[in-house]
């Protein structure tokens, strides 16, 4: 990873995504928040960027930065986007909040040449230990909510996602693991030892 890359919104996954995206490409950021990543990409990599967001305040933050943004619920299909309309479609830290994650992954690979997905790994040792020893729903920096107020309704492990891709003809082109904000280069047993990941996927 490029060491000069700033830590966007204090999130290592965003910096990795920024690093992966090619200069001058077209990017759709699903759940783009305040547009931090897109703003960085537009300014530093001259991408043609667009955001999808549902929260009004965050949408206004994007507008302020001059980023085109559409209010849209990610649980609905993208009838308005043609096949292969974007080089990259990003879904960062959101897949576990979706009602129909499978549908959206299919949509991502229909409208984008590549999909970039990041999520917290529910197979992480610390998570497993909480459930095993305390018998309680795990909480961590990546999973700060209680069971009754969490937006995370489809939590998954790294192994789950890899199997999902294998059985659906989705190729994992790149993968980077994290613990906290730190990269874990050469980690063994990532499903046990990584807190999160960023994955670049494409349709085979």
């Amino acid at each position, binding site marked *: 990873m490029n060491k000069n890359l700033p830590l966007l919104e204090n999130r290592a996954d965003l910096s990795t995504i920024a690093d992966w995206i090619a200069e001058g490409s077209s990017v759709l950021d699903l759940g783009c928040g305040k547009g931090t990543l897109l703003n960085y990409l537009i300014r530093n990599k001259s991408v043609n960027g667009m955001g999808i967001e549902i929260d009004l305040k965050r949408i*206004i933050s994007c507008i302020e930065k001059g980023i*085109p943004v*559409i209010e849209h619920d990610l649980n609905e299909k993208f009838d308005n986007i043609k096949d292969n309309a974007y080089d990259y479609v990003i879904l960062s830290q959101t897949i576990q909040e979706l009602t129909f994650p499978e549908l959206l992954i299919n949509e991502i690979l229909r409208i984008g040449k590549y999909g970039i997905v990041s999520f917290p790994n529910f197979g992480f040792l610390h998570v497993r230990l909480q459930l095993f020893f305390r018998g309680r729903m795990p909480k961590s920096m990546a999973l700060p909510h209680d069971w009754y107020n969490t937006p995370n309704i489809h939590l998954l492990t790294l192994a789950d996602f890899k199997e999902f891709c294998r059985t659906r003809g989705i190729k994992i082109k790149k993968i980077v693991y994290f613990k906290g904000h730190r990269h874990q280069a050469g980690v063994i047993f990532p499903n046990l030892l990584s807190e999160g990941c960023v994955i670049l996927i494409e349709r085979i």
Partner: protein
Amino acid sequence: MNDKSVGIVEVKCFNLSDTGESFIELDSGKRFGPISVAYETYGSLNDDKSNAILICHALSGSAHAAGFHKKEGHNPGWWENFVGPGKALDTDKYFIICSNILGGCMGTTGPSSTDPETGNPYGISFPVVTIGDMVKVQKRLIDHLGIKRLLNVIGGSMGGMQALEWILRYPDVPMSCAIIAATSRSSAQSIAFNAVGRKAIISDKRWKDGNYYGGDLPCDGVAIARMIGHITYLSEESMHKKFGRRLQDKEEFSYDFSNEFQVESYLDHQGNKFVERFDANSYLYVTKSMDYFDAGEIYGGGKLETAFENIKARSLILSFTSDWLFPPHQSKEIVDALMKTGKDITYINIKSSYGHDAFLIEMDTQAAIISKFLMATYNKLHGRGNA
């Protein structure tokens, strides 16, 4: 709410004939002239003429968008809470132009204007005009003011139709547009409401084939048309909140056909107030121009995507959740086609219970969105970064 105002303003007049144009070619194929345009401007044009914004008004609006006529506090502009120093359309930063539409009755040539050939008002000998014709006249005004590029064209409802027409007809002129509570084509439902309004006017005995000038006005027809219009501008929820089933100035039913319910007396009041300020024939012409509007048909042979291919402007589309006259899904059609053609598009469906009228009421949210959109567009134009 910011109560600063642009202060006292005056309506100005521009005659197309002053620039040597004695007529314009209308979309219907007819030639029409002479045309004069009533307009107002607020703020000042910067040195490189890059801060001009054109406001397009809705059905019953006028060139008087901001400030007061004659004295402070008297006759405020129809978008006074939106246009002024420090407001969404900030007159400290931008040069704002608003003109009355062709076919209107607030200063620009329309059916109530005098036909120089006969010396009498045109009446229904005035040609049927389109949204496109209105925009052609606005373009002449912009040219007259020496402005080559507009920072933005903005309008709600029928004003939004004009803003859309602008970016299609003159793709190189507006840098951006804001299309609020509008549609790319009038639906059967909105044509139907307009048709009832027109029928009410035409059926009024005092309408006399449009030759009522100088005599009794077709007040009942105009009032009924306005009452119907007003129903379509509100929502069930906003009507319920505003009036409920409350009675006007009484506690019990009188068991007759007087205006008993508050909603009845409100509509009656709106109808009667409208008669005083709006010309019946203009109502026929302007509603007809809305009915004819179909951007996909006119510019894309029926396909909105084809129509939008040449658009260069950044587009901001806003709709309101409770608007059932130009409902969100009609705005969404514009958004979808702009996305499919890969345009610079921003869309928000603003939560509101006020129905179609929300574009004149939901000021805070709209102001936050529009002021930031304009600033970002201005910065892009000047190659400046945003924080």
